[in-house]
């Protein structure tokens, strides 16, 4: 599959070179350019939580050889930074280093409860084209939401897929809920720390306990609780 994708990419590259060459020595004959095979996808993410702002979205368009995370597996350093501190830069840089990744991008900023952010991507679609995206629930230690490897290559123009996204626990920081460890407005504390202080595998998040439910060291209150799902993500092929 991976091999085939590469071959197709090479084929496209060779064809484009040939077209450039033809154009370069064009002496007036009509050289018909094939229509561009590019597709544009619009990603809209809506924050469905009551009081958990979402950090700027990190999004990756890729083929099958990339995974942003897997349940039961240790988070990458980039995912740890995204989930603990809300910064998608290293997560996206890791993705960009993968041969199966076609495009990476960042959302427009913090997505407040009830708000929607939109990101668009243009690429040459393959049947197995996938979308991965992630964003932190910032009033937590290391909770994030998003989608991992949603196939979008089968969308025709005008079609869309809607996903109700789960909250995940990156497993890289203990869920102490103390002010110094919560980077969002509820805590104002530190985000990313390199040490891995939890079970070190990604799982579905078990929710926050909060001081209103007996965790006396928690800076969170009952308003910061959440249930699944925490976000709605709609991917539409618009071109």
């Amino acid at each position, binding site marked *: 599959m991976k091999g085939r994708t590469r071959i197709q990419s090479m084929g496209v590259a060779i064809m484009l070179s040939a077209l450039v060459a033809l154009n370069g020595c064009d002496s007036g004959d009509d050289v018909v350019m094939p229509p561009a095979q590019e597709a544009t996808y619009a990603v809209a993410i809506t924050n469905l939580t009551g009081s958990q702002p979402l950090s700027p979205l990190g999004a990756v368009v890729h083929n099958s050889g990339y995974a942003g995370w897997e349940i039961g597996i240790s988070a990458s350093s980039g995912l740890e930074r995204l989930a603990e501190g809300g910064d998608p830069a290293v997560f996206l840089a890791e993705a960009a280093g993968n041969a199966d990744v076609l495009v990476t991008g960042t959302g427009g900023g913090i997505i407040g409860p009830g708000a929607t952010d939109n990101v668009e991507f243009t690429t040459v679609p393959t049947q197995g084209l996938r979308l991965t995206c992630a964003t932190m629930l910032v009033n937590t230690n290391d909770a994030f939401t998003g989608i991992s490897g949603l196939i979008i290559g089968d969308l025709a123009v005008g079609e869309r897929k809607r996903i109700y996204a789960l909250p995940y626990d990156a497993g890289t920081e203990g869920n102490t809920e103390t002010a110094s460890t919560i980077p969002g407005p509820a805590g104002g504390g530190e985000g990313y720390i390199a040490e891995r202080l939890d079970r070190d595998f990604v799982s579905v998040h078990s929710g926050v306990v909060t001081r209103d*439910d007996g965790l006396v060291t928690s800076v969170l209150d009952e308003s910061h609780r959440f249930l699944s799902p925490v976000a709605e993500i709609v991917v539409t092929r618009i071109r």
Partner: protein
Amino acid sequence: MKRRIVTGWFVSALFCFGLAVPLPAAQLTVAVTNLTNGIYFTPLLITAHDNATHLFQGGAPATANLRLVAECGDLSGLVSDLGGEDADTVADPAGGVLAPGATAVAGIDTTSTGNTRLSLAAMLLPTNDGFVGLDSLEIPGTPGTYVFYLNGYDAGTEANSELLDTSGCSPGMPGIPAAPGGDGGTGGSGVASADSNTAVHVHRGTLGDTDPAAGTSDLDSRIHRWLNPVARVVVTAQ
């Protein structure tokens, strides 16, 4: 050769006119992943069966043998109900408890039975009578990979006291029989008395507390809570 082609056309024609429903795939691989952060699954029962059979149904009282699974993690009763382990009834594919983040894989072959539905059950530990369940999924008729997410259910048969009692287990005996993560407490005063909904229902989750030696619960609110879904099932149909 010729005959095969004719048969092929005949089948195609039936599909075109919508007269035939595709038969369910006979050979399945079923991969079950524990999605939780701190809850263990007791040995899983994964079975294909006919459309009249149910391991459980939301809104209906648990059978005695489902209760045995939900309170004690004991599959023997349900396996017996299903006629024993065979090509499409698999008990304990993980060889023991399934830890958070872990995956169990079972092969299900309905060639000789023609069974059309897939169900699954295992107890959630540590809970009083919580279980992860799948009730009568229609087995896909087209080869491919299908992903499903499962909820945690409450069997409705035992009070959610959240008190550990590792002295043994039998249906009707109060208490949580084990905390496989070794992170259970003692000395709790008890969280809940009898369930108000005594039918199978979506589990409301555990409460826990932060005092391992006292408080109301022997569970830890920072470890033993969960949100749905608790499991992912990937069915690969051949």
